[in-house]
């Protein structure tokens, strides 16, 4: 059994984006505050602090959840992934963004960006579990996040486009391809050629 007395300052250790990190906190310290103030991982934003807005969402052992509704001491020994680590495994593109982040940029799925880190972490978990979601399912997943400037249309587009691209389908399968300069940027010409070849086969 582990016990911490109130007002005691204790040191806890966790894995942040693949690195072992430690810091001090009290039993009442929220995980969101611990990540930002103690570990300096300020990519995770804090909005409402009572579980409504979703800005502080990170992945805890892979699972997207709100850090404002979690204590730092509960994260002891766990693996935490934040937006800073999103491109760790699949960095590509000019700025080392992940495919999901690239899709957000391409689709103008953010404006002020305050909500974006949380949305990215939720989407990363969701797409890992549900690689082929419907638009309705993506909207349901996004309902746990409040965005007050861009609106959700482009966010939905970006998530759907990422899903489609990861499945190796042409970007044309998403509505984003209807806009100039959008089609084929991420998945490359090869996929488009393949799609064209397939459609030729069908028409023949």
């Amino acid at each position, binding site marked *: 059994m582990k016990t*911490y007395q109130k007002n005691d300052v204790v040191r806890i250790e966790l894995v942040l984006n693949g690195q072992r990190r430690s810091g001090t906190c009290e039993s009442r310290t929220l995980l969101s505050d611990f990540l930002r103030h103690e570990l300096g991982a300020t990519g995770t934003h804090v909005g409402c*602090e009572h579980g409504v807005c979703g800005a502080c969402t990170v992945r805890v052992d892979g*699972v997207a959840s709100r850090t404002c509704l979690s*204590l730092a001491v509960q994260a002891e020994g766990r693996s935490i992934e934040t937006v800073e680590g999103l491109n760790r495994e699949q960095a590509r593109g000019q700025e080392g963004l992940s495919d999901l982040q690239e899709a957000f940029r391409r689709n103008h799925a953010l404006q002020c960006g305050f909500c974006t880190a949380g949305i990215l972490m939720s989407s990363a978990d969701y797409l890992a579990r549900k690689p082929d979601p419907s638009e309705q399912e993506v909207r349901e997943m996004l309902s746990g996040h409040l965005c007050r400037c861009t609106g959700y249309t482009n966010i939905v587009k970006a998530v759907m486009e990422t899903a489609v691209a990861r499945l190796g389908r042409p970007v044309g399968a998403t509505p984003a391809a209807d806009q100039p300069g959008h089609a084929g940027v991420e998945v490359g010409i090869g996929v488009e050629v393949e799609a064209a070849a397939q459609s030729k086969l069908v028409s023949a």
Partner: protein
Amino acid sequence: MKPQAFDYARPDNAAEAVALLADAGEDARILAGGQSLMAVLNLRLAQPSVLIDISRVPDLDYVRPDAGMLAIGAAATQGSVEWRAGLAAEVPLLAQAFPHISHFQIRNRGTVCGSIAHADPSAELPLCLLALGGQVVLRSRAGRRTVAADDFFQGMLMTARRPDELVEEVRYPLAEPGLRYAFEEFAGRHGDFALCAVAAVVRPDGIRLAVGGVSDRPRVKSWACLSRTDLDAAINDFAWELGARDDHHASAKFRRQLVRHMGRTAIDKAMS
């Protein structure tokens, strides 16, 4: 928006958890998923002296069919039930209700037993438990007792749980052949608290309709097979019995209309 200071304990097993609960007295709170409790702590609506964190207790983290019921342990998240392959065959009503329960990110961490223990009158999991005639297993240092859902929910955030008891397990009856299930909900926005939620269970010999979000707790009513007109009248009587009140979300009249309309819709959906 920060919690008041508290002592924190993370027991290794359920026996330790109930022992701590007995020793700590009425000021102690069980912390499982924390998706309701942490918000309440952040707003300082509750200021417990001790938090007993059971979220990592291995012998409470299970979901398994057991004697005709789906048994869900106190540390099992809603997500672990929702993403269970075959849930739609095991407990079809839960599979229909899950998309309405708050949000993906909350269900990932929130627990089923926590929602039952919290007993919010608009919550979907208590409503489904009542509609299906499920059970709640309560454990204290003295032992265990099983309470029927009918007797467990007693009022606004009030249950039959005693202060030294842990909601150790919740049991949802598995689907029975010949029974049909339907769930309907109306909320201001998707994932918000339900203004009205209904769960219908249709048997060859009768209908059971449960309503949440209208009364101070989920309520249920059973009827033998009725003609369409008689059923509408019966649902209307039920709508009035629920004692809906006006609040800043909706009027009592609107809530009664929701019960009439959605009750009928759910029963038709289950029968179709």
